[in-house]
């Protein structure tokens, strides 16, 4: 299990000054794995206007602060998500978007998807719903901003400190050779 809890590694005083700036300017990389991506254009454009909180889309993992995993995660995409996540410079945060990254959603018993994203990369906030409306997305991102400001969103530190645990979980899925449904290979 995880060795360190979130409360033990909250940011110090100096970091919190910088955290104010970090929370007011979130650049996001959205990994469009599933249907959730269709809710992002209305969130960004005129009706709901994400940019007034300083949240704007960015093109590559190097520039991004938050990684949005929008929808179910199949085994193949998990590898790419881990690559993208590890390419992002710190501090970085992950938003699980919709019910699929929380518990598998309607794909919970599928052989091709994973059920809990939090076991493979540290998710800072989850926005449940199938799909979450733009209001819910903005609400979720605002509470992420709040926890960044307080220095409580420290998923990236958890990933560093418990790297072995996360890597073990990733290997279990990515290097799986036995057929899941028990057929002959």
């Amino acid at each position, binding site marked *: 299990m995880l060795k360190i809890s979130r409360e033990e590694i909250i940011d110090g005083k100096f970091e919190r000054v*910088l955290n104010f*700036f*970090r929370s*007011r*300017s979130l650049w996001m990389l959205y990994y469009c794995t599933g249907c959730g991506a269709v809710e992002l254009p209305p969130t960004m*454009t*005129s009706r709901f*206007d994400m*940019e*007034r*909180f*300083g949240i*704007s*889309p*960015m*093109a*590559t993992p*190097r*520039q991004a*602060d938050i990684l949005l995993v929008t929808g179910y995660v199949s085994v193949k995409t998990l590898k790419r998500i881990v690559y993208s996540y590890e390419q992002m*410079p*710190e*501090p970085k945060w992950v938003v699980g978007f919709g019910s699929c990254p929380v518990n598998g959603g309607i794909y919970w018993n599928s052989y091709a998807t994973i059920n809990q994203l939090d076991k493979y990369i540290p998710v800072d906030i989850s926005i449940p719903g199938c799909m979450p409306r733009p209001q819910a997305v903005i609400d979720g991102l605002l509470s992420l901003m709040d926890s960044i400001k307080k220095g409580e969103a420290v998923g990236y530190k958890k990933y560093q400190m418990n790297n072995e645990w996360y890597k073990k979980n990733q290997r279990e899925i990515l290097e799986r050779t036995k057929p899941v449904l028990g057929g002959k290979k």
Partner: protein
Amino acid sequence: MMEVLNVIGYSFFAMAAGLLYMGIGRKVAARLHRRYGPPVWQCYIDVVKCFSRKSISHNFIMDLGSMMGLSGLLGAAMFIPIAGFLPFPSQGPIIVILYLMPIGYLGMAMGVSASGNPLTAIGIGRALTLMIGYEVPFATIVLSFIAAYSSTSLVSLQAAQAGGFANWHMATMPFGFVAALIALMGMLGKKPFDTMIAPSEIASGPMVELSGKFLGLAFLQHATAIFVETGLFVLLFLGGGSNFLEFIAKQAAVYIVMSSLSELWARYRVEQATKFLWISAGSLALVQLVINMIIGRK
């Protein structure tokens, strides 16, 4: 000693002013989309955040290139007189500014292509091709000023426009003004000419591999570029500024016009952009040059 302080202060001022114009431009663009838009000081927050992040350097050339890009443009900013003020005594020579400005882009090109990402190579190729596109009309405009005044000093060109709107080069050299407006659009990388950034096509081109502090430096470089280019435009065509605030207001007005026009058009391909710049802006600038040569020296 005083001059050193002046240079440092002026550099910070140029970057801060550029960031302010960027923020205003974002707000104006948002209002045109019928959005509320980010606050005007959003760009300052972005820069502080960029510098507070960890960054990934690929090699020494990348560090050197990023610094060279910023310092080249700051060097160009040193020759832009604001209401007669220059950080150290000079006459604001346009030739030196034209010489120093490409150093900024070349530094950027060297720095980002050292990262080895193929998308940066495409982006830089596009940026430098576009530079050929706007440098030719702009150099022709500078030549037309030389034909009219036999001087390349920004201070004396500003003095020649004193005494109201009728004396501004915007009114006395209308063809050159339009040509410079189009060339400025290309310089600032605004919408019809934003082929080098193109986030949906080549993943923001030169900035693909820039993280943390490098992205912050790129932001500051863009801010300085905005300051230099709009400043040059204000000094050449809009009569400069008799005081500090007037100059700033004119620069901001130019940038607001640019970012509003930017919302009108879709993106040109790079060869279309170069062709458009040469044919429209280049021919207008040539017409102005011929007119100035016929009228003769003032």
